[in-house]
Structures are given as C-alpha cells and as structure tokens.
C-alpha cells in the first residue's frame, strides 16, 4: 500500500469513517509494516490535537451571540459577591462625583440635561410587552390572554421559537418599561423590567397551573408594572 493511500485510510479509521474492510486493511498494513503503526499513532495525535484545539482558536474570533440580557444580573451578583460592595471605587469617590455634578449643574449643563429628561419623559411610551405563542391563542380558546385582559400592555405574538427567542434576548429599548413571557418548559413567568436609575432586572415567578389562572397572573403582573 503506498503512503498516500495508507494516510487516507488511516484518517478514515481515526475519524470513524472507515468501513470494516478499510479498517482490516489498515490493521493488516500495520501488522506487516511496523513503521506504519507509528505513522498511524502520529496521525491520530495530530487529528486529536487539531480537532480539540481548532474550534477554540475559532472561538477566539467569535463576535456573537450577544450576552443575553437576563443573565447580566446573575453576573453582576457574582462580581459583587467576589469583590464586595466596598471594592467599588465609585462609592469611595462619591464626594468627588458629587462636586463634579454640582459644578455641571451650575455650569448650565444640568439645566439642558433636565430639559432633555423632561422632554424624554413626556414622550416616553412606557410600554409593557407580553410575548406569546400564536398557537397558545388557538389552543387556549376562551381561556387564553387577549388584549381586553391587559389593555395597557401590548401583546406580541410569535409563530416560531427563533423569533420568540430573539425577542426575549433583545434588551429593553429606551422607551420600554417591561416585557413578560411564559416559559412552559420550566413553568415560569419571566418579567424583564426597568427599575430605578434605569437598571434592568430579570425576575421569575412560578407559573400558575391553569390557562385561566395564568391569564389572571399576567394581568396582575401588568397592573403592578403600571402602578
């Protein structure tokens, strides 16, 4: 057997692509020519090294997906637990920041910012969105959530997982107050909402057991978000 044929067959064996005949041919070649066994072992090591390491070198260039919004809090908590609140130099530098803010306010910038904030608040549509599968509407019939149940919220219907996942992963827009969705797989109701100082938090609560109870649960959550 010539060298290129052996390398080809050996690689098939190593990659689990070989037929039984090809496997036997490689075994026979290695038994009759001991140098082939060493060649086989070398090829196997190269194959393992590259198939393990090559995906990692590619990972270093990855640009997506984005960090899901609802995992940010979890990571922030881990940072606080590790470094402790005292480690945040912002707290230590509080007086300096305050002096800087005062200077800014009296310098006129504050007035402009205040005007801008008032305008933004007037125009902000503090929307609450509720994400649902279209199939739930059909399946749930009378029991399913409708726009009448939550007039102050906007219902967003999805036909497939991909678009629903994208909607869930998207951070809240500046004019959005909250979004809510049901995770039937884990029996959880997800609430992604804006709290004080623009911070966004993700909360979950156990999902009510029936369609009717879930409808009430969502209504209550929407009402609490509007108050």
């Amino acid at each position, binding site marked *: 057997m010539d060298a*290129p044929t052996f*390398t*080809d*067959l*050996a*690689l*098939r064996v190593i*990659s689990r*692509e070989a037929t039984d005949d090809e496997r036997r041919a490689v075994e026979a070649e290695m038994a009759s020519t001991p140098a082939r066994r060493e060649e086989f072992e*070398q*090829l*196997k*090591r*190269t*194959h*393992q*090294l*590259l*198939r*393990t*390491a*090559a*995906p*990692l*070198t*590619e*990972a*270093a260039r*990855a*640009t*997506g*997906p*984005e*960090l*899901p919004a609802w*995992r*940010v809090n*979890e*990571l*922030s908590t*881990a*940072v*606080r637990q*590790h*470094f*402790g609140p005292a*480690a*945040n*130099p*912002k707290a230590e530098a509080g007086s300096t920041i305050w002096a800087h803010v005062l200077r800014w306010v009296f310098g006129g910038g504050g007035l402009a910012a205040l005007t801008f904030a008032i305008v933004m608040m007037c125009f902000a549509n503090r929307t609450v969105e509720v994400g649902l599968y279209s199939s739930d509407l059909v399946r749930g019939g009378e029991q399913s959530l409708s726009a009448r149940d939550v007039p102050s919220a906007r219902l967003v219907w999805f036909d497939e997982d991909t678009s629903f996942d994208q909607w869930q992963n998207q951070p809240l827009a500046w004019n959005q107050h909250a979004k809510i969705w049901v995770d039937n797989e884990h029996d959880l109701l997800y609430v992604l909402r804006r709290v004080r100082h623009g911070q966004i938090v993700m909360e979950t609560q156990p999902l009510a057991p029936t369609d009717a109870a879930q409808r009430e649960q969502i209504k209550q959550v929407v009402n609490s978000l509007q108050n």
Partner: protein
Amino acid sequence: MGTDLELLTALQRGEQDAWDEAFRRLYPAAFAAARHPLASLTPTEAEDIAIEALTLLLPKVKQVAAFDELRLLVITIASRKAISEKRRQLADKRGGGDITSLDAMQDDETIRFEPAEQLLYHLSGIDLRELGKLLDAALSALEPRQADLVRDFLVHHLPYKELAQKYRMPIGSVGVGLARSLDKIRAHLQAMPKLSKELAAYLR
C-alpha cells in the same frame, strides 16, 4: 472604558461597569467554546456553561497581565467545562437505566473524551495563541477551497458525507484531500517541536 489596560485595571479593582463591559465582550468567545463540537451541547446548555466560565474569571483576574489573556482563559475554561458536562451526561445516561444505555456501553463514548479533556486541562492561553497562529499559517498555505474543507473538518467536525455534499465532490476525494492537508499541517506543527511534543504527550 479606554484602553484594554485601563479596562483590566478597573476589572482588578472590581468595578462593576468594567465587568459589565468585559462580560459583554467575552461572552461570544465563551459561548463558542462551550459549543465545542466534541461536547455537542444544546444552545441553552452552552449558555449556562459560558456564564459559569465568565464567573470563574473573577478569581483569576489578578493573575493576568493583559485583557486578551482573559479571552483565552475563558475559552479554555468553557470548552473544558462543556466536555466534562457532556461526559457527565453520558455517564448519567449509562447509569440511569436509559433504553439506549446498551448502545452507549458497547461504544464507550466517554473514553473518547479523555484525550480531549487531558489536552484542554493542560492547554494554556499561550499555547492556544500559538496554535491559532500555526493553524492560520498552515491553512493560508492551502488552496482556499481546500482550506475551507479542512476548516469544516477540524473546526466544525463535519463528517465526510456532509463535506462531500457541501463541496460537491466524491466522498473518496474528501478523504484524500483531508489526508494531504493534514500532512501539510503536521509539517507546520513540527516547526514548533516544543509545543507539539508537550501537547502530544497528553494525547497518548
């Protein structure tokens, strides 16, 4: 946040904003590493592994000298955890009385992960950077179509059949082309005898 060095200094001080920025920048790499084809985890599982790997950077941040080291570190952590998770899942499947456990026992999949786990345990960020450069050099020396074929085989672990379909070539030519290209890459590896010898030792 200004330069990478300023970012790293802020991370070492534990500044929340800096960590938010670092997590945002490093998540894609962590997620891609957690989706290592050997582990073949679902996107949800990979997301959990990536988040865990990011939190494991916290105790290590004072040991690194450059922000980019964190990227390489999170990649090795995430890939190692992903493969361990896969191994654990297979072990559970075998021990859990699952109907497929007989198949699993006949073809002991967990053994397949041992060399990869060993290698990932010993692979440092510096090794990974060197290997990346080596692979880039080796692949750029190939004809572009051949380089894409090899990349799909090594990086995405596509089987011969899929490669033949994707590149519209006979399945026999796939193997011949891969074998030739791997020989060329091996020649590049031999140019780095220390690294290749050290890493190969974990694959025996």
